[in-house]
């Protein structure tokens, strides 16, 4: 599959250059059409995002999927603001796959990820709602034949100067006949009623009483339940199984092997039958050519590759010479491990393949890709594949890939009934598309008074773009792999950053919460700390020195330092670490306070975060995302790494792939700087901040500089 579309990074650069102008200049396909869509029932659908029925029911068709980040709520707030209705008046529907209508202009795909959702929808959803409101008012004014200017809308009701009122439903059918205005004026932020408030999330009530339906909860008439075993080694093949034994298990109905022989499923009356059946099936695999791969062989190959010159990502001044000639030179090797996403909801997919059409129920961040995958594996035309996108029990990037849909389609096409395939946690964890292993060489030079005169940084690792969106992988440079390495908030006279692509054997790699910045911020912000130490300067002071012309970055740094009591004395064995970032269009600074116990156990005390993400739709959601993102990041930095033996993944479940528990979670304070800058992304910022903040805090607490997570494993105890 080729996705030759503008990638989100290119557009972000452009938009940054244009001060967000590009966002405003967004071409709205829906507005371009001559007449509004309307159906027999007289429903009013002026564009792809808003639908109003004749009873006044208002539906938002959300272009972005809900993975827990609260986008349904923020999108409803954007719509409600311009439509002059309350959140409780809006129904929300997941958008069907339709690139024409629901393409994310920043991702170049109908996708949810990269913390771009609010940035993508900030204008287009408000415009969509404003268009609807304008047309509804126009329709009412026409009925009353008064000047629309004398009418106003409030909570779904249109009032004229004389006090007459009409509900949206009353005029929906008429509005549908009116031409769609080419442009509309948006509210001035000073008049916002919803945007900027801590509105309650629209999806929470159903999630506290068990009624929310996730992909894994789908039930269909005559549906059966299956579970899969996929070749434990990438490229392996099924060479044996005891089908008779599997069929002897009570409740087992079918044993289905994919045509490619890379997976097999046992299907039965319930998951337990399928699970027991799969145990009895006891599939045997030929590992194929990857049977000899271990983490060590992968890292060795990466080390070798990292000796080569890479594709230049940034070249300012003569960094190499500057470093060589410097009074003090510092250099280091950083390594970032493979990571699994392991969202709480294991992979699953419900499919019903019929001769002339297919239906698929799942939670996906990429509905169009899911639709294409089913079409490809069933041979059905794409428009005969219906995708029903569901709530997701987390994703963290996992559901930006459709490998599980492909397996499901390859199996479901062999059975006439609807089948829900659920991955066990073990299958999910062992067949992830992992966060790449990165291997970073960094070096820098300091002059006599400790100023950074130059830095070099070589990133070596897999290119996700090359596989996921080849169109965005230009001239061998992966702009995700170097994000936050090439551009930093700091002013440094000479900088050289290059990228060496090295694809690991036996591993699939993909987006992981925080993407490029999660890896590069760990390297850059840890190394900046090393430089501060070499310069015998306080890490906050040292950073301030390089932020003269970066007021927004300086502001979050100062705020976090102040709120955290930076510099105030701490007991022995306790330390504070700072990290600063400009990523996803937001400025964020974290100060983390930790201590290390006698057995080398890490105790997380307190995190103070200062954030400037510009215009904020829902401050409470921003806080929640930072809290949660930070905890996922800290959990990962302390405990997680994926390793291989004989080409297969060693980890399998939460007993050997640890997740932080409530008793380890630190206090987290989030301070938001409010301003009218265009909105920045938020969903991944906290995760990206975690590793550098923790590494720097551990250094402060123990004097040990950790350059290779997970830290709990590598911290030498007794310090």
């Amino acid at each position, binding site marked *: 599959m080729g996705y030759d579309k503008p990638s989100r990074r290119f557009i972000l650069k452009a938009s940054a250059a244009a001060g967000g102008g590009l966002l405003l200049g967004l071409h709205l396909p829906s507005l371009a059409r001559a007449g509004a869509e309307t159906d027999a029932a007289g429903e009013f659908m002026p564009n792809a995002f808003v639908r109003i029925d004749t009873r006044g029911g208002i539906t938002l068709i959300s272009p972005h999927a809900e993975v827990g980040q609260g986008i349904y709520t923020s999108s409803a707030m954007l719509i409600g603001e311009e439509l002059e209705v309350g959140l409780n008046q809006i129904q929300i529907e997941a958008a069907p796959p339709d690139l024409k209508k629901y393409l994310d202009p920043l991702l170049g795909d109908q996708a949810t990820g990269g913390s771009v959702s609010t940035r993508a929808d900030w204008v287009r959803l408000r415009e969509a709602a404003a268009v609807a409101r304008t047309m509804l008012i126009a329709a009412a004014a026409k009925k009353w034949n008064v000047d629309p200017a004398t009418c106003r809308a409030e909570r779904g009701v249109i009032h004229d100067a004389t006090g007459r009122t009409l509900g949206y439903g009353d005029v929906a059918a008429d509005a549908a006949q009116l031409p769609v205005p080419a442009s509309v004026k948006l509210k001035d932020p000073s008049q916002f009623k919803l945007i900027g408030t801590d509105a309650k999330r629209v999806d929470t009530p159903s999630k506290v009483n068990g009624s929310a339906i996730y992909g894994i909860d789908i039930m269909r008439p005559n549906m059966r339940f299956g579970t899969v075993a996929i070749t*434990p080694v990438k490229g392996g093949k099924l060479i044996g199984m005891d089908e008779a034994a599997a069929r002897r298990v009570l409740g087992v109905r079918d044993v289905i092997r994919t045509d490619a022989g890379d997976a097999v499923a046992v299907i039965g009356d319930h998951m337990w039958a399928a699970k027991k059946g799969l145990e009895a099936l006891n*599939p045997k695999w030929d590992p194929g050519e990857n049977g000899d791969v271990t983490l060590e062989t992968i890292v060795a190959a990466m080390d070798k590759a990292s000796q080569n010159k890479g594709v230049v990502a940034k070249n300012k001044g003569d960094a190499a010479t500057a470093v060589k000639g410097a009074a003090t030179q510092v250099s280091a090797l950083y390594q970032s491990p493979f990571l699994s996403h392991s969202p709480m909801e294991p992979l699953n997919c419900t499919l019903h393949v019929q001769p002339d059409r297919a239906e698929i129920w799942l939670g996906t961040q990429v509905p169009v890709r899911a639709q294409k995958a089913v079409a490809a594996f069933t041979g059905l035309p794409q428009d005969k594949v219906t995708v029903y996108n569901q709530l997701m029990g987390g994703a963290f990037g996992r559901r930006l890939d459709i490998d599980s849909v492909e397996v499901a389609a390859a199996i479901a096409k062999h059975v006439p009934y609807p089948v829900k395939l659920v991955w066990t946690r073990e299958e999910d964890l062992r067949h992830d598309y992992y966060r790449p292993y990165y291997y970073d060489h960094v070096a820098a030079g300091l002059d006599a008074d400790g100023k950074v005169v130059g830095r070099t940084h070589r990133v070596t690792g897999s290119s996700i773009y090359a596989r996921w969106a080849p169109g965005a992988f230009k001239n061998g440079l992966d702009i995700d792999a170097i994000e936050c390495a090439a551009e930093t908030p700091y002013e440094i006279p000479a900088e050289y950053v290059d990228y060496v692509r090295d694809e690991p054997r036996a591993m699939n790699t993909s987006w992981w919460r925080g993407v490029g910045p999660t890896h590069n911020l760990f390297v850059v912000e840890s190394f900046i700390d090393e430089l501060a130490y070499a310069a015998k300067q306080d890490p906050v002071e040292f950073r301030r020195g390089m932020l003269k012309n970066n007021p927004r970055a300086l502001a979050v740094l100062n705020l976090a330092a102040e709120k955290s009591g930076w510099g105030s004395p701490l007991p022995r064995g306790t330390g504070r670490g700072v990290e600063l970032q400009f990523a996803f269009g937001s400025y964020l600074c974290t100060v983390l306070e930790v201590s290390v116990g006698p057995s080398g*156990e890490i105790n997380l005390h307190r995190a103070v975060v200062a954030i400037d993400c510009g215009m904020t739709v829902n401050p409470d959601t921003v806080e929640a995302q930072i809290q949660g993102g930070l905890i996922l990041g800290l959990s990962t930095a302390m405990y997680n790494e994926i390793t291989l033996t004989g080409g297969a993944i060693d980890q399998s479940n939460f007993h050997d792939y640890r997740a932080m528990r409530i008793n380890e979670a630190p206090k987290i304070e989030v301070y938001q700087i409010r301003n009218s800058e265009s909105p920045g992304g938020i969903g991944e910022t906290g995760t990206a901040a975690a590793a550098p903040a923790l590494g720097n805090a551990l250094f402060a607490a123990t004097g040990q500089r950790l350059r290779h997570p997970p830290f709990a494993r590598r911290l030498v105890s007794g310090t």
Partner: protein
Amino acid sequence: MKWLGLVFGIVGLAGLAAAAFFFLPAGLTPVTASAAQPTGTALIARGEYLAKAADCEACHTNPGGHPFAGGRAFNLPFGTVYAPNITPDHDHGIGAWSDAEFVRALHHGVDREGDDLYPVFPYASYALLSDDDALAIRAYLATVKPVAADVPDNDLKFPFNQRYLMRAWKLLFVPGHPYQPDSSKDATWNRGAYLVEALGHCGECHTPRNVMQGLDNSKKFAGAEQVGWLAYNLTSDADHGLGGWSDAQVAQYLSTGHAEGHGPASGPMAEAIGYSLRFLTQDDIHAMVAYLRSIPPQPDGPPAVGRTTSPVAEKNPLGARLFVEACAGCHLPSGHGRQSVWAGLEGSHTTGDPKGTNLLQVLTQGTEIKTSQGLMFMHSFASAYTDEELAALANYTCAQFGQRECHITAEQVRKARAKAPAKTAQAG
């Protein structure tokens, strides 16, 4: 000159005698069942029960493999021995064996070709089996699914690969006759003795071995270490053995794998219960209890649970923290066991052992037991937790549920880890 020849002569004769002892083919005495032996399906049912009581399947089945098809590896100090295929397959199993050959194997540790078998196959105990029982087991094994699969060749260092040496060992340690009832004891006791000594071969693990790897019966059932696991003291000693247990508790333990107030079985004992003991009739269980009760006390091995009552969380915050994170899901913070009696830790010998031998085995290798309610399992926690963490966790568990101050070190954890079988790539 004359008597020099005599010397040669004597030496020569001795040599011949030795040669004969070591190398003459083992004889084959015909066996016939007594009149009491049932026939037909009754015989097979009896054989199946006895095969369970003798725990044949556990050793002769490779994890994940076909029952009785062998292949399970036993890693001994002097090399690796693989359990043979005892399915009725003619070429790969024992289908071609005569009954006499089968009984000879159980009684004398000799295979069909007359080669001596290694005592990891507990013929030193099976020698006590009656001919009828041996033949009944044979009859049952003839009915299991034949599997045409070879097992790997044993891999033993010299001189242990010299099978004939076993003959000397047998002379010393293998009884020459089946179990002889003790007329001074009642039938229950004698039945129990037969179940424990012959079928159950309990001594093979629970009685320490001497320098020649024979059972040291001066310390009968005083407890011993086997493949890294401690087989506990079964004598009636109150502190170290079963003296502190009620008959009901011992019976419950044998037939279910856990006892109120004494915790669950783990490791090899869990296996013995899962494959064997839980299938025994209550009469047989009570007979075993009666016999075990008569074993003279021996004050060996780790004492049962201690009496520390001071709160331990303060002393060991890391252990306490890890326990509620990783363990309480099944065991509950209180150790009562959340929902499964097999997860109740209080009073278990394993938590009370200050050395934590089996505790570290369980933590680094996991354990599982087949029960009437399906498989109960605990995963290995070795890979995601550091040696320091596991040591803290073990010390907490020991203090909190074994009621004893323990000082298990990271170094001990590292050693226990090293013992764990190497991880192998496999489907999830």
